């Protein structure tokens, strides 16, 4: 079996708080996780869950209190490993006295490219993130969305094998978000591994092979988005119309939501056939029958609302 591209073992980070009497606050608690090559892995969690802390630890910007992590088989302390990875920080801020072209050229210098190679790469990246016409504009004149695109460009400038993106869709309009999703999917097609944090769950649902849900510094679940959803107890939603002069059975009435002639009712799977028979008896016209699929958002919200809840899926190491 191939080694995971990202392997995190018991990563823990405490931060001191308070001025006089220093106390430690645990921001990340024993995170253990593995990401395979070519995956798009979504790292989900509300603000303060520990997502950015995890990414900063992996990038060597802060140091772990306990635990270790390896990327492409090399320790996160190994600076040379950074040749193979790209990183977009949360709410990126760049040298605003530089133009987008100068900034990318500056970052490209750290990979030893010659002047011609740098020029080509920078032009290609600006084109790829839709900033070809704004390459000569100083970054202080850029909007938040444009800065986010520059951030993505600098993260993938050197064709890294693993790309870490911290809230890449943040600050983008719907079109920009779709473009970023396309870029991420394009990276996957090239065989790259993408690890990105987000709290925009629909984005994660759409493009992730797997997601991990982090809450209060602890990993609460890991799995395919569908896998996480399948853990939920499903029900069925029935949409139907009543014929004129026919009344809904009394026991269904309190559970049904009415809009004009139409009714919508959610029933547990075990009761489905019984309810359908009742509806047939009263000559209701069934319009649709669909499983109630709780969204990742529902899952996420439930976790947030019950911090002590047992993890729905616990799959720390594959």
């Amino acid at each position, binding site marked *: 079996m191939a080694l995971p591209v990202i392997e995190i073992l018991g990563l823990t980070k405490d931060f001191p708080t308070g001025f006089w009497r220093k106390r430690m606050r645990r921001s990340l608690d024993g995170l253990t996780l593995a990401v395979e090559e070519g995956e798009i892995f979504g790292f989900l969690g509300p603000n303060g869950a520990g997502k950015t802390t995890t990414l900063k630890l992996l990038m060597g*910007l802060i140091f772990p209190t306990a635990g270790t992590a390896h990327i492409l088989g090399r320790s996160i302390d190994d*600076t040379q490993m950074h040749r193979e990875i790209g*990183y977009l920080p949360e709410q990126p*801020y760049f*040298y605003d006295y530089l133009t987008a072209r100068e900034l990318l050229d500056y970052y490209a210098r*750290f990979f030893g490219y010659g002047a011609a190679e740098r020029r080509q790469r920078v032009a290609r990246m600006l084109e790829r993130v839709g900033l070809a016409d704004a390459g000569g504009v100083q970054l202080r004149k850029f909007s938040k969305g444009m800065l986010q695109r520059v*951030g993505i460009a*600098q993260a993938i400038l050197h064709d890294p094998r693993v790309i870490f993106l911290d809230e890449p869709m943040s600050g983008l309009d719907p079109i920009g978000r779709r473009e970023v999703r396309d870029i991420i999917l394009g990276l996957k097609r090239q065989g790259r591994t993408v690890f990105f944090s987000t709290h925009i769950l629909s984005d994660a649902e759409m493009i992730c092979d797997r997601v991990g849900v982090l809450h209060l510094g602890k990993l609460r679940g890991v799995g395919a988005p569908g896998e996480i959803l399948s853990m939920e107890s499903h029900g069925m939603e029935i949409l139907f119309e009543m014929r004129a002069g026919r009344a809904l059975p009394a026991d269904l009435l309190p559970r049904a939501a009415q809009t004009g002639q139409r009714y919508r009712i959610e029933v547990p799977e075990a009761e489905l056939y019984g309810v359908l028979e009742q509806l047939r008896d009263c000559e209701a016209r069934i319009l649709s029958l669909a499983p109630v699929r709780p969204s990742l958002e529902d899952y996420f919200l439930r976790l947030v609302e019950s911090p002590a809840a047992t993890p729905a899926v616990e799959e720390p190491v594959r």
Partner: protein
Amino acid sequence: MSGMSGAVALNTFREAVRDRVLYNLILFALLMIGAAVLVGQISIGIERLVIINLGLSAISVFGLVMAIFIGVGLVYKEIEKRTLYSLLARPVRRWEFLVGKYVGLLLTLVVNILLMSVGLAAALFAVGRPLLRSDLSILTAIYFIVLELALVIAVAIFFSCFSTPMLSALFTLAIYIAGVFAWEIRDFGALVHSPAVHLAVRVVYYTLPNFHNFNIIAAVGHAERVPFSLIWQNTLYALLYVTLLLLASATVFSRSNLK
């Protein structure tokens, strides 16, 4: 210096230029023009002394202000604005970043000082005095100012690795002032009879960077010859001290958690 540090240094220089740091040159030029006009009217035979003293002192003060106030923000600003995040995600070691920032600011100051030196030469020319062989010592004084500022930047960077710009500026200024009066500190130790105090004063004297030895402005004004031994001793001293300070800075910075 590694290629990584070189890239950081060039960007630091570019930042200083685009932040209009070199605008101080206009002030310096005005000062020199004013001085040249004024000494032509009020001083008889001491134009050289006045212009050299004023010019070199201005170069030193302007450089000092820039070294401290830009130096203390070099690292802090990159952390505060989080520009360092994207940079350290590249194959750049933290010490390479520090060395790059250091060299970048030093380069900015050297360019600045060179341009101010041209201004000083122009002022000397303006007061109608031919250049003499002894004027070469002015170049030595300028070289010592560069060495002095190289040391000040290293002190500022060291403090900025663990302190706010305001405190770092205060600490650096305090160290500079104490370093200028290093000999007085040593002489004070000789006056005290307590062996403990004597030892403490000696430790402070040898630990503090001695800025006194870099100041030869008065001697140059009087066309005194600067001994060659002082040149190489000062060079070696500055090199050693800067290396030690950068090593200490790198040690602190390499294990510090960024915000």
